[in-house]
């Protein structure tokens, strides 16, 4: 353990604060401040508690929602018996164990990583876990947030603690300012392309530098969200005034004197001058362009106007074959069938505003199916108040109810075998958006540009 007199990183400070016990030769017992739960990875954990006759240690630190297998069609009609059973099980578990659940009938429901921040549950300095790898999203607030398996969900429900080996630290510093038409999504896709899908294994990433400081909270969430796609346990951005302005007055944020005290504490969190990271990587924001993935993992991305690379490995050969693309050819101009705007990566109001800039006054190209799925009901209401839903509908896109939808394709929202989708989600794995479907990951701007042109298009030409 580092001596307290040495300069500490943001991660060091949160970690140290939350270590409950650390026996020799064992992982640390780490306290968890907020446990988020959804329907897919929790039923086995609650079943485990029942089998052991255990209850929740701190039910008030656990919050549940339904997002993965929920319908996004108007009226929320569940056509799938298994999905219905899973949703009913979560509702029952929450009643039986005394957990707050934003269920199907709640107007505060949404994707777990969208509602945590918007309700003010996510706060700087916290430890946050969820049985979902995109929990890293909450790191945008300077919280140590990471995904866990269902056994660990059971551990946290029972003890409010987890056994954790201390991760290493990786600084990703992004200097300069993002050029026009280049977004947080492009930035994180460029980071993953640079360090690879296992470049962050064993590490917690802290994103630093002027380009990160200049991002609003929603953009920071997009960056942290995809830390897992580089293999990292978590992604962090130090809290600052942007963070506090976002959080102030939100439902579960501290109020009055508590707020003042909290902000004073949070101001102590950023990494100290001279704090050391195990590894540092530097990118120049000015040099970034809109990014798009061509392959079957999120590290297989290129600047949109580049030609496809040569097949440099077995994995890339496999990806070219699955995607039915040829090395060395351009991707711009490639016809597409489906566009998906949404997910915990890009389903927030700022993302929808970006997409709407492109859709405004244009029409979705003939034969292209376009889904716009808000990340939560709060996002949906805000978008409708701003008239964004009219822009999407007038353009010929489908405006849906909130949920994970076509990012994970568990709820019937999916692409067909052989189809190409441009998607603002986080994973282009084989079959991720539907068996045999092919996914290009990109920003909301690039996705919308593909929708209105029917092909892969540099969105800067349409801004």
């Amino acid at each position: 353990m580092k001596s307290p007199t040495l300069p500490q990183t943001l991660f060091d400070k949160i970690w140290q604060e939350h270590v409950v016990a650390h026996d020799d030769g064992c992982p640390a017992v780490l306290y968890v401040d907020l446990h988020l739960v959804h329907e897919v990875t929790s039923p086995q954990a609650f079943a485990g508690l029942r089998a052991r006759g255990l209850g929740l240690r701190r039910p008030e630190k656990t919050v549940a929602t339904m997002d993965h297998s929920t319908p996004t069609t108007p009226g929320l009609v569940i056509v799938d018996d298994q999905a219905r059973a899973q949703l009913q099980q979560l509702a029952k578990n929450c009643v039986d164990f005394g957990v707050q659940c934003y269920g199907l009938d709640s107007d505060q429901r949404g994707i777990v990583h969208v509602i945590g921040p918007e309700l003010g549950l996510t706060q700087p300095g916290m430890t946050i876990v969820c049985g979902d790898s995109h929990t890293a999203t909450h790191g945008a607030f300077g919280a140590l947030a990471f995904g866990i398996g269902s056994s660990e969900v059971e551990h946290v429900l029972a003890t409010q603690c987890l056994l954790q080996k201390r991760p290493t630290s990786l600084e990703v510093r992004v200097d300069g300012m993002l050029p026009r038409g280049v977004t947080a999504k492009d930035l994180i896709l460029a980071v993953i392309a640079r360090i690879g899908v296992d470049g962050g294994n064993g590490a917690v990433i802290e994103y630093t530098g002027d380009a990160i400081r200049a991002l609003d909270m929603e953009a920071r969430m997009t960056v942290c969200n995809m830390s897992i796609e580089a293999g990292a346990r978590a992604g962090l951005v130090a809290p600052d005034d942007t963070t506090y302005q976002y959080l102030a007055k939100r439902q579960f944020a501290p109020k009055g004197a508590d707020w003042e005290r909290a902000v004073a504490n949070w101001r102590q969190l950023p990494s100290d001058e001279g704090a050391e990271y195990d590894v540092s990587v530097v990118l120049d924001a000015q040099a970034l362009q809109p990014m798009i993935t061509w392959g079957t993992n999120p590290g297989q991305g290129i600047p949109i106007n580049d030609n496809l690379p040569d097949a440099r490995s077995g994995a890339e050969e496999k990806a070219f074959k699955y995607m039915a693309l040829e090395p060395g050819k351009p991707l711009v101009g490639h016809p597409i069938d489906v566009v998906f705007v949404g997910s915990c990566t890009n389903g927030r109001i700022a993302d929808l505003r970006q997409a709407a800039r492109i859709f405004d006054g244009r029409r979705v190209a003939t034969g292209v199916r376009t889904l716009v799925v808000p990340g939560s009901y709060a996002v949906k209401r805000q978008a409708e108040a701003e008239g964004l839903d009219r822009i999407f509908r007038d353009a010929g896109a489908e405006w849906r109810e909130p949920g994970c939808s076509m990012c994970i394709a568990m709820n019937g929202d999916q692409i067909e075998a052989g189809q190409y989708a441009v998607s603002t989600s986080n994973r282009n794995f084989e079959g991720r958006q539907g068996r045999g479907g092919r996914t290009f990951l990109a920003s909301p701007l690039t996705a919308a540009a593909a929708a209105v042109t029917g092909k892969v298009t540099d969105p800067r030409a349409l801004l």
Partner: protein
Amino acid sequence: MKKVEIIRSRLNPLLVDDVDTDQIIPARFLKTIGRVGLGANLFADWRGARFDASSDARILLAGNNFGCGSSREHAVWALADFGFQAVIAPSFADIFQANALKNGLVPVAVEAAVHRHLVAARAQDAELTVRIDVRKSTLVLPDQEEVPFPLDPFARRCLTDGIDELDYLRQHEGQIAEWEARHARG
């Protein structure tokens, strides 16, 4: 948890790098509320082409960064339910590795040279059999060469003694309560 000490088996090779948990168990099979029976859909979309489901080998010989992507423990349940007891690979994704250890599925990370040797030897001899000694954290090759693999002492003890992590955590009840009391005072 069931104790795991010695695993002796032939190898089922799946030599693709960066195998994500969506391939191990596709999301359409995650609507179950149980943890049994997932083996029937292990590598559902890769059967025949990449994954030989007819093999009864108990050790999967995999590529680099095995188990990346989604945190779904269903991937480990599916492998174990199918009958796998260990996975040998040059490296594993973090969450997969943690999930595997909680279910008695032993992640055996070997150096590239050892991996190449195993891959070549398996290509020559489909009956090639190796032994994993969890207590010693070694992989014993057919020529009896013993290759160590990393397994932290706690994980090893959990496997060989069948220690359940939740039981271990619950032994810290007093310290957890003290931590909470300290932080409640602010």
